[in-house]
C-alpha cells in the first residue's frame, strides 16, 4: 500500500509542477504493474485506444547508459487523415516520477517525429499516449531493460553540468532526398541544464538535494508554435530534442525554456534558407 500511495504522490507532484525533492527510490521493480494506476492518474481514466497506425515508440531494448536512453516518438497518421495529433505523453512506468514529458504539437508545424533522451532507473514498460483532435487517446508501449554495470541515472560529470547551465544550441539537419522546396525540416535543440532529479541525499547536510530541472520548453518558427514540452526529472541532463516539422517560410527559430528555480532561458536563431 505504501508503494501505491507513494507513486501517486510522485505523479501528482510532477503534474502540478511541484519538485520531487523528498521522493525516495521506488521499491521492488516487478512487484506490480503500475500502469492502470498511472493511466487513471495521468489520463483521468479516459478510454485508451490501440495506438497501431497512430503512434509509434522506439527505444533500445537494453538501456546501455541508464542516464541517457534514446527514445523516438513517431506519428503514423497518413497525410490525408482529417485528424491531427494534439499532444503525446511519455510515461516511464517504473521511474520515480513516471510522467517523463508531454509534447504539445504546434497546430501548423506538422511535427511527425520527436527524439529525446531519458533516464531509466529500472526494468520498465514505457508508454506513449497520443491525444488526437477527435478527442480520443491512442496508446502504444515498449519495454526497456535497465542497464547493468556502473551506470547510474545520475550526472557523470557534475561540475560540467553546472557550468553549462542555460546554454542553448540549435541545429538544422539535411534530410536526404528532401530538398528545401518540400518545406520539410529536421532540427535539434539542446539546453545545458543538470536536470537534477533531486532524489539523492546530500552526504554532508543529510538533506535531499532539491530537484532542479527544465519543466517547460517552447519552440517557435517566427510566432507559430512548433513544439511545447512539459518535462520532468526523467529527461536526461542537458535536455536534447530532435524533431521534424514543416517550415512556414519563417526566417527565425525561437526557443524559450523555464526551470524549477524560475530561470528563463531564451534564444533565437536565423533559419538558413537551404534548410540545412
Amino acid at each position, binding site marked *: 500500500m505504501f508503494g501505491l500511495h507513494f507513486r501517486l504522490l510522485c505523479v501528482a507532484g510532477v503534474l502540478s509542477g511541484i519538485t520531487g525533492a523528498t521522493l525516495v*527510490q521506488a521499491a521492488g521493480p516487478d512487484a506490480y504493474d503500475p500502469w492502470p494506476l498511472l493511466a487513471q492518474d495521468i489520463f483521468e481514466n479516459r478510454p485508451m485506444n490501440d495506438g497501431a497506425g497512430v503512434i509509434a515508440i522506439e527505444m*533500445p531494448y537494453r538501456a*546501455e*547508459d*541508464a*542516464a*541517457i536512453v*534514446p527514445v*523516438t516518438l513517431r506519428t503514423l497518421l497518413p497525410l490525408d487523415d482529417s485528424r491531427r495529433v494534439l499532444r503525446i505523453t511519455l510515461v516511464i512506468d517504473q521511474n520515480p516520477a513516471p510522467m517523463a514529458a508531454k509534447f504539445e504539437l504546434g497546430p501548423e508545424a506538422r511535427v511527425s517525429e520527436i*527524439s529525446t*533522451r531519458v533516464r531509466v*532507473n*529500472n526494468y520498465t514498460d514505457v508508454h506513449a499516449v497520443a491525444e488526437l483532435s477527435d478527442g480520443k487517446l491512442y496508446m502504444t508501449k515498449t519495454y526497456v531493460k*535497465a*542497464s*547493468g*554495470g*556502473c*551506470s*547510474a*541515472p*545520475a*550526472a*557523470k*560529470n*557534475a*561540475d*560540467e553540468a553546472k557550468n*553549462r547551465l542555460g*546554454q542553448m*544550441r540549435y541545429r538544422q*539537419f*539535411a534530410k536526404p532526398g528532401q530538398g528545401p522546396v518540400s518545406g520539410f525540416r529536421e532540427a535539434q535543440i*539542446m539546453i*545545458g541544464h543538470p536536470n537534477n532529479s533531486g532524489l*539523492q*541525499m*546530500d*552526504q*554532508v547536510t543529510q538533506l535531499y*538535494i532539491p530537484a532542479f530541472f527544465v519543466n517547460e520548453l517552447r519552440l517557435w518558427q517566427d510566432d507559430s508554435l512548433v513544439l511545447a514540452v512539459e518535462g520532468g526529472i526523467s529527461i*536526461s541532463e*542537458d535536455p*536534447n530534442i*530532435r524533431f521534424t516539422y514543416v517550415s512556414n517560410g519563417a526566417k527565425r527559430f525561437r526557443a524559450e525554456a523555464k526551470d524549477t528555480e524560475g530561470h528563463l532561458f531564451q534564444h533565437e536563431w536565423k533559419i538558413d534558407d537551404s534548410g540545412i
Partner: protein
Amino acid sequence: MVHRALLAALAILGASTISLAQQPELSVTEIAPGLFVHHGVTELMTRQNDGAIANVGFIIGDNAVAVVDTGGSVREGRQLLAAIRARTAKPIRYVINTHGHPDHVFGNAAFSNDGITFVGHRNLPRALATHGPFYIDAFRRTMGDELIDEVRLVPPTLLVDGSLKLDLGSRSLALRAWPAAHSDNDLTVLDEKTGTLFAGDLVFLDHTPVLDGNLHGWLSAIGELSAVPALRVVPGHGPVSGWPAGLADERRYLETLASDIRALIGRGEQIRAAADTAAATERSHWQLFDDFNARNATAAFSEIEWE
C-alpha cells in the same frame, strides 16, 4: 582515557583476529617489494565471482599499511584483509579508493571498524551519494542479497584536491586527484619507493575501457599520466604492465571512439547510430566489448555534441 582507548583497541583487534581466523585469503602477488596485488577477473560482477573483478592491492611501509581499493563485495574486502594479516601485523592506516565504482568500493565495510582513515578524491563523497544507491539496487540483481545486504557506502574523510603525500614509514605514497576522466572522482597512487603506479580505472588493459566521466578529460589525463615517473602500472582492470607502454591500447581506443563519434555528429546521425557503429574497429582488441562499447558511445556522443 588513554587506558580505556587502548583496551577498546585491543578488544577490536581480538575480535577481528577471531573472525579472520576462518576467513579465506584473497590471492595476491608481490609485484614489487612490499607491494601486493590481487588481479581481478575480466568479467562482470556476479554472485559467482564475489564481485572480485577489479585489481586491488596493498603497500606495506615500515610503520603502516595502505590499502588501494577494497573490491566488489564485503566478502572480497574481508579476504583482502585476511591476505594482509597473513603478511604483516603492522596497522592498516589508510584505505585509498581510486574512485567510487562498485567493484572498487563495495568492500570498504570490511575495513571500517578499525580506526582506519578512508582517503579519496574530493568528489568521491558526492559520487557515492548520487550513484551509490543505484549501484546497490542494480547489483542486487546480479550478485544477490547475501553479498549486497552487507555493503555499506563508506565515504572518505581525508579528501584529495590536487595532490597529497601519505607516509607509511620510509615509504611515501604520492596521491593525485584528476579532473573528470574515467569518472569525475579518479585518484592515482604512486608508490615512489618502487615506481609502481596504481592508476585505478584511468588505465584499462584487456577489459574494454568504461567511460563514466569525460572523454576529452580522459584523453588529456592520459597525456599527463604518461609523464608520471613510474616503472610499472597496476591498472584498474587487466595485467600489471610496463609504463607508460600500458597506456597505448586505451589511448587508441578512446581516440578512435572520439573521432568516430565526431564523424557521426558531423553527418547529422542520431545518438542511436553511435551505439551501433562507433569504435567497431576496436572490437577484436578488447574483452567485454559488447557490454561497454555501446554505452561508451552513447556517453561520448552526448559530450561531443557540445564541442
